[in-house]
């Protein structure tokens, strides 16, 4: 099993770098995961990550992209409520990259 | 020689019956015709006829390969018919009439085989996938074909004695074999081919008729296709 080091703690991740235990997540861990993805976390990144975690808390799954874009539009303004904007923040794809940083399991299936 | 004749024929027959029964008895659990496919059984018969007589799929795949394959198989069919004169007596008029075509067939067959063999050497992809036996089959068929043509054009054997010999085999009272080097080579080659047929890739001949992607009708929504082993516990509930 692979691991990452954050602030002296050793945290388990799976083969693809997703957290094995969701409860290991905190903002420091997220920052470390983001660094591995080559992403510099800004306020706007955190908005997305926090929303993902809230949604996951309630529904036990990552939000559909449309739910996410609507939520972001509400928070950051309608001009940012689209997937192009999300791809700007998370170039490898909001569903997967943002989920990884948010400590959620990888969305699977035909996505 | 006569012993070999009987042994090879018997091996061929038993082997083929065994393989064909095996194919026929193995269930096809699902409908898997390669579509677009004919929706009716009449359409399937037509598809298989196009496949086996004209090599439809091969034509789509590779024209040069199709050409050599048709040359070889078509030639072989004519040669086969020509050889019937050794097995039937009296020889019917149509068979007499088609004898020269059998010779052309022999030439076509050898040319086709040479083309197929050349491909295995010259095309790197085909060389990569060829096993020693792939070359040997072509060589064996060439030996049979070339020795046959040699007897037609160069060194005629005693065909009257040959016919008498084959007729005697037919009646299980073997006469002496009309020894002739080319004839011996020709017949031995043929017997080897016959005996190995059911244990080799030559099974593509019966196989094509049992190929589910080609012999199934595309009617999955109209008929509930069932295979015995797959009726699971779910159905008995």
């Amino acid at each position, binding site marked *: 099993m692979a691991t990452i080091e954050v602030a002296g703690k050793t945290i388990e991740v799976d083969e693809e770098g997703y957290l094995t235990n969701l409860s290991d997540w905190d903002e420091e861990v997220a920052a470390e995961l983001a660094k591995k993805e080559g992403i510099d976390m800004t306020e706007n990144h955190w908005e997305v990550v926090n929303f993902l975690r809230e949604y996951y808390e309630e529904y036990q799954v990552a939000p559909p992209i449309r739910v996410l874009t609507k939520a972001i539009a509400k928070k950051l303004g309608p001009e940012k409520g689209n997937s192009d904007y999300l791809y700007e923040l998370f170039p490898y794809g909001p569903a997967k990259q943002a989920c990884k940083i948010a400590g959620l399991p990888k969305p699977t299936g035909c*996505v | 020689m006569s012993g070999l004749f009987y042994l090879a024929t018997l091996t061929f027959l038993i082997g083929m019956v065994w393989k064909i029964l095996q194919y026929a008895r193995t269930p096809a659990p699902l409908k898997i015709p390669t579509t677009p496919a004919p929706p009716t059984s009449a359409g399937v018969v037509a598809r298989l006829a196009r496949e086996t007589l004209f090599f439809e799929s091969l034509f789509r795949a590779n024209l040069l390969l199709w050409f050599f394959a048709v040359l070889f198989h078509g030639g072989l069919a004519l040669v086969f018919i020509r050889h019937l004169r050794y097995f039937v007596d009296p020889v019917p008029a149509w068979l007499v009439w088609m004898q020269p075509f059998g010779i052309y067939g022999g030439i076509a067959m050898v040319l086709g085989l040479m083309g197929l063999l050349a491909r295995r050497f010259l095309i790197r992809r085909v060389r990569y996938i060829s096993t020693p036996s792939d070359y040997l089959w072509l060589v064996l068929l060439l030996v049979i074909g070339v020795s046959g043509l040699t007897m037609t054009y160069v060194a005629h054997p005693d065909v009257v004695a040959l016919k008498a010999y084959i007729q005697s085999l037919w009646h299980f009272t073997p006469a002496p074999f009309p020894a002739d080097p080319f004839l011996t080579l020709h017949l031995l080659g043929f017997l080897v081919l016959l005996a190995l047929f059911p244990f080799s890739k030559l099974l593509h001949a019966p196989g094509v008729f049992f190929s589910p992607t080609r012999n199934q009708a595309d009617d999955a929504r109209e008929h509930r296709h069932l295979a015995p082993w797959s009726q699971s516990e779910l159905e008995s509930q």
Partner: protein
Amino acid sequence: MATPTAVPTLDPTTIDQFTPDAMAGVRSFPAPPEIQGAIGFAPELSEGWEARAIARMGELLQENRALRVFLDACVHCGACTDKCHYYLGTKDPKNMPVARQELLRSVYRRYFTFAGKWFPKLVGARDLTRDVLDEWYSYFYQCSECRRCSLFCPYGIDTAEITMAAREILNHIGYGQKYTSEIIGKVHRIGNNLGLTAPALRNTLEGLEEELKEETGLDIRFPLDEAGAEVLLVTPSADFFAEPHIYSLIGYAKVFHAAGISWTLSTKASEAGNFGLFIGNHQQMRKIAHRIRDAALDLGVKRVVVGECGHAWRVAYSFWNTLIGVGSGADPDDRYGHLLQKQLDHRYKQPSHICEVTWDLLQRGAIQVDPEANDHLTVTYHDSCNVARGSRMGDTPDGAFEIPRAIIRKVANRFVEMDPATIRERTFCCGGGGGLLTDDLLDVRIKGAAPRMAALREVVETHKVNFMATICAICKAQFTKVLPAYGFKMGMVGGVHQLVSNAIRLGQNG
């Protein structure tokens, strides 16, 4: 992070220039023991796997005529050698269909044929060793089971059947692939490949209703679990989750709305996809399909309709009648078949593809469209492999090609075909089908997309095509990912019903 993949160029003159074992090291992650175990496979490789693998192969040979015939019949003619998109894109000769088959066939020969037992070298027979097994794992997960090779094989040998058998053996002995096994576990546990829980699904659908209300002023519904609806729509869960998939879902809803057909989705059957097909496991495939039968019976629907999903349509069209009785023509004494079939309305094809439904309504004038709505698009159509070579629509053999095109021509004014050698039954796989749509295989996916991308580039350059329509969730996801690697915009791909959604006239029945 994924390593960047060099985009292959396709030059017909270099077709023979290959590099042996170029892709041997490209492997998706094997499934961890808990994932394998959860769906009833051996958790991991253990002592004696060789014998268990050979025994399983023996069983498959008894159960499946296709496998039996295909393993015997190949003559190594080479007709298939330049037909596989993965060979064309990777130039690894083991990605030639015949060579891929040979990985399994060589072992079959060794253990099941006279020639292979006594003359292994002569006929290319091999013992099943760990190296051979790893090679299976590499290359049988570099096949998308698209059946293009089977179209060209003179004996109809379908590499998909060989790949499925190999994956079944691998799973049986505990060497499964994480992507497919994890998803199959989710379908059983939660009801769909994505793991969308019922509350999440309901929330998503309600959100869509609100959104469409704002946009159109109409109550366009996305009903869930509504007993007594006429139509049960079974669609890939990606349609609820991802873009561009969701635009087609909106399209289906608008079609049903405009035609006044009552319909429902089901939480139990919230997935059309059936990855049991990909791993060649009959029991899994049946079990996954069985959710649809249960949902149809529970909800009392008259019709079962399948959304835009390629392999799901193959399973639905070709296998559902066999597996779960969704179809027609069960024998009078077939109680299991009749239980469902007497409930279904056989004036309609069972199951129907959403394209069949929409085309029928368009032909009858039951829905109206304004093709001008798509005038900003020049559209081409990518035939999805499982639809093209493993199923049909309508009454004629070429219905699966004609019906989606007929819809597109009706709803869009500008339609252009790609190179005829790359469409209809000759279509090239998107490069992500058959269980390969996973990040760890991105390299293979990008390379495998090369033939399709080349054909697309041609029509982009000559006709300014800016939209490639398709009817498969995997194609949509795969293209979204690989189009940028080829310098195209990811938004270029979308569903046929995305176009319908743009053009359909609403309100008459609202």
